[in-house]
């Protein structure tokens, strides 16, 4: 004798359940993504006017608030011109590099999708005399 099939309650298939459920799944997925990629690491490169890597250049990281950008960290580049910041807690930062004799780069704004997102600077900071 076959068992009668259990059917879902019609309310479970209504849009009032499905839409909030989909939203909850999206929020959960997004938060999972944030948790897995939020160590606050920012990587980049500093190059000279000719495109050559600049070692020992000083790179400053400015954190954006409503109206001002405040310096939060600074670091120096390695022999390959690369730098790395750790523990950034902002969602929008500015980066600027400087090296004695080679000048300064322009301030580059890096906007992130969430606070402390790990990110690579898409283009190197170019020093100009």
């Amino acid at each position, binding site marked *: 004798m076959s068992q009668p099939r259990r059917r879902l309650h019609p309310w479970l298939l209504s849009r009032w359940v499905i839409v909030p459920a989909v939203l909850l799944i999206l929020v959960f997925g997004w938060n999972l993504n944030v948790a897995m990629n939020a160590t606050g690491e920012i990587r980049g490169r500093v190059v000279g006017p000719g495109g050559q890597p600049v070692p020992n250049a000083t790179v400053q990281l400015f954190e954006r608030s*409503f109206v001002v950008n405040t310096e939060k960290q600074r670091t120096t580049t390695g022999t390959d011109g690369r730098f790395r910041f750790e523990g950034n807690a902002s969602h*929008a930062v500015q980066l600027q590099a400087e090296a004695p004799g080679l000048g300064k780069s322009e301030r580059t704004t890096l906007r*992130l*999708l969430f*606070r402390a997102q790990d990110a690579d600077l898409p283009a190197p900071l170019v020093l100009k005399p």
Partner: protein
Amino acid sequence: MRRGVPWLRHAVLILVSAAMLLPFYWVLKTAITDENIYAYPPRLLPQNPHPYNFVDVWYLIPFPRYLLNSIVVSLLAVVGNVVLNAMAAYALTQSFRAKKLVILLLLSCMLIPFQATIIPAYLITARIGLLNSYLGLALPLLSTIVCIFIYKSAFEAVPRSLVEAARMDGLSEWRIITHVLLPLSRPAIATNVILAFIWSWNSFMWPLIITRDADMQTLPLGLARFLSYMEDTTGALYAFVCLVLAPGILVFLMAQSAFIRGLTHGATKG
């Protein structure tokens, strides 16, 4: 029988819809770009769209807190309207002395703007100790007269014999409302949900008056605060507007057919 050219009718409707949706599109387009809305010539399509204005809004002000406050207050208002209005409307479908006077009083109350009653409303809320609380924020919208009459017309459309039969079966008045009338009045429930949600979601003056802590502010107050910081027409301001609008639009889209049926329920009776 309908006459005329169907495609022409649809073309006109599409044009009118596009004209009505254009401001919403412009707000969204500005929110996902950093374009100046006064730029000339205006660009119809967004250039280099990005989501960063929404990120700015989320982090530069306590947006999650405002969102939570608005959701809690709106849910309270929705529950209050669905339950209390049903009870009031059921009472108005019964026969009792001075019923017409009560209806007249309710209708005349609709003529008084909320701004005129805001001081007594504040004093009452203060007296019962609900200032700066979620319940106090939702209090004036827990029951609205328009929604009572929407329920009333829906309940009157239910055959009287059904209610009498339920009463003879021994159902209490409360169970008649919950087990007989409300299941047959879904469009009216949807109308109550949408109207209560949108009115409480957009409410500005009442929260402005009774909240004392920034932590208790709702989204419209947050928008005003954000506007005071971001005076120029940046995309972040429009991103904020989009985030404030989105839940109301979502709730409306989810219940629009029932909403329209609820509003036109009494119009076609007889």
